[in-house]
């Protein structure tokens, strides 16, 4: 059987046979997994197109994932083996180093799968996360049967709630880190490049934000607004996460701005804005990517902490932190509520940290051989 026909049936499998188990395994598992979802939930998949937005997104994700895995694999096997691009940039060198780190590649696969599951949750969740089955007969049911991970004290399905909770945790993690990385990188780069009083003001502000106990600040802000919408939580977490990034970027920029190519850029008549955005920041991105990845895990834990304290999202909305908190009182009778939601947090955070560590090693030229 040729690679092309094998790839048409099992995308990623030919690549795995050639030892490229990372990308190959990724597209193979995505292909098989989504195909399984499609076959098992055909009715929901079809109904999804006319349903609410998250159903539409879920159906779209299935189609896009299948096409992506299949299309990539077909493109990859049809490509001549020895095709080398003339430009090998920093990123392809990094990718090469990253792929050698098996644990980190597994981390990426877990992260991708968590995101996929979060996106297609409406198709696969066995129950509605807020629906109570029956307070009389289905309260605190042990895992197995109709409820794979049991039910909670309000007879809601824990498995479905964990999957819906993934969407909350991941979007909060993603957007909060997006906000913090943008602010941190810009402020750090400007402060490091301009130096002088700008630097002093920005860095003292950073010291101020860092010196304030973060959880206390979060509790104060959330309590102040008396509303716990997801956007408020994202904004608050994002706006308190940036000082670390700003410090790291500033440190990088302080050494970058003395480099000759920055002087050459000035000699070419580039404006300060252009130099900072196009020449300084791209050179300082490596540590930013690492802190961003590690930051996602950090923010997810913080959000869980807030929810645990009851300052997270409004109760019917499933969130991992509030589920751990809900199960707290029933740990001896119904261990599954807190345990499985806690495991979800651990799995996600560990996966992100593995990716972050892998990126840090891959982006550090001193560790590259």
């Amino acid at each position, binding site marked *: 059987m040729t690679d092309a026909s094998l790839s048409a049936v099992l995308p990623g499998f030919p690549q795995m046979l050639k030892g490229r188990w990372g990308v190959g395994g990724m597209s193979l598992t995505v292909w098989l997994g989504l195909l399984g979802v499609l076959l098992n939930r055909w009715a929901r998949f079809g109904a999804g197109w006319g349903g609410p937005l998250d159903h539409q997104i879920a159906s779209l994700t299935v189609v896009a994932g299948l096409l992506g895995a299949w299309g990539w694999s077909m493109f990859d096997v049809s490509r001549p083996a020895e095709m080398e*691009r*003339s*430009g*090998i*940039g*920093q990123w392809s060198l990094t990718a090469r180093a990253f792929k050698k780190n098996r644990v980190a590649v597994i981390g990426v696969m877990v992260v991708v799968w968590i995101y996929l599951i979060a996106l297609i949750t409406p198709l696969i969740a066995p129950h509605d996360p807020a629906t109570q089955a029956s307070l009389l007969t289905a309260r605190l049911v042990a895992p197995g049967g109709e409820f794979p991970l049991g039910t909670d004290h309000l007879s809601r399905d824990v498995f479905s709630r964990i999957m819906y909770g993934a969407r909350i945790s991941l979007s909060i993690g993603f957007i909060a880190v997006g906000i913090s990385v943008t602010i941190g990188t810009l402020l750090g780069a400007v402060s490091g490049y301009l130096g002088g009083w700008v630097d002093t003001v920005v860095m003292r502000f950073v010291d101020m934000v860092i010196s304030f106990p973060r959880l206390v600040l979060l509790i104060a802000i959330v309590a102040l607004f008396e509303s716990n919408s997801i956007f408020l939580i994202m904004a608050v977490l994002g706006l308190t996460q940036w000082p670390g990034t700003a410090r790291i970027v500033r440190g990088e920029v302080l050494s970058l701005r003395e*480099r*000759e*190519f920055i*002087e*050459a*850029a*000035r*000699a*070419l*008549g*580039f*404006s300060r804005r*252009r130099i900072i955005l*196009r*020449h300084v920041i*791209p*050179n300082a991105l490596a540590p930013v990517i690492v802190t961003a990845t590690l930051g996602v895990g950090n923010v997810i834990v913080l959000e869980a902490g807030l929810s645990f304290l009851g300052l997270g999202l409004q109760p019917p909305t499933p969130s991992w932190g509030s589920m751990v908190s809900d199960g707290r009182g029933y740990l001896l009778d119904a261990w599954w509520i807190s345990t499985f939601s806690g495991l979800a947090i651990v799995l996600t955070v560990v996966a992100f940290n593995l990716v972050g560590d892998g990126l840090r090693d891959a982006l550090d030229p001193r560790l590259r051989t």
Partner: protein
Amino acid sequence: MPLLEVTDLRTYFTTDAGVARAVDGVSLQVGTGETLGIVGESGCGKTVTALSVLGLIPSPPGEIVVGSSIRFNDEELLEVKPARLREIRGNAISMIFQEPMTSLNPVLTVGHQIEEVLRLHRGLNKRDARATGVALLAEVGIPDPDQRFDAYPHQMSGGMLQRVMIAIALSCEPRLLIADEPTTALDVTIQAQILDLLVSLQRKHGMALLLITHDLGVIAEVCDRVVVMYGGQIVETGTTEEILTRPEHPYTQGLLASLPGIGDRDVRLNPIPGTVPSAVDWPDGCRFRDRCSFAWERCAESAPDLLPVDAGSSRSARCWLVDPDDSSSGLAGEPT
């Protein structure tokens, strides 16, 4: 009217140890299409002079003292607005740096960096910029320019990168090219190639070249006129031939004497004794006095100006030895 006219340039730096007078009263002219060499030891102010012309002195700690003047094409560069200065840099005046390996942004392809200049200063769109960029790479002698255009700096050798730097510097057809030790970081065979390239491109485009070097061999090959700098000042000027064959200033003589010759295997090198004094604390009188074998009392009492060597020529030297009115000349007495 010269293309570039620097008059009494003083660039001082404030340091913890005091004010470093890195460039202390330099005046020079570069005519259209002319090649002027600036030669001198490390720390004599060559590079600071060049950076001052482009307005690239970091301030603080650097400062160009009031009274200095840098006129380019009848425009006072020390008084123009920053935006106008940015228009001039890379466009009318370009600069090539010493270290080609570190003068290009490592995360961008060389093509991208050429394109960026073309798009900024000449307003080309992406496709035209690429075509022009590839043509420029071909012009500076890079084989396979279409392929190399997409290469990253770390994939190219030092000589190739210096060619790329030259291509970037020439991309907007500058009227003045400042080359700060363009061959120092390269090996000898490549040095010759790069110099040839610079000279031929200069002829072709009719631009002026301000070449900064510590290598008298480079000066001999390329320059029309030479300025010798020592201690932040010009100590001697003249045509290349005059300077190399009949140096007047003891420092220039010392520089020439310290050159090893081919075949002089058994002859010891003949360096200038001592080191350049600190720019924070230049000696009173003549700044070269401590290292000069001709120095006498007058050198400690007062510093000479740039004195004309022969009446009617542009030749001058900052040394009492060439002072025709001097009665106490050390030439008559014994060198101390």
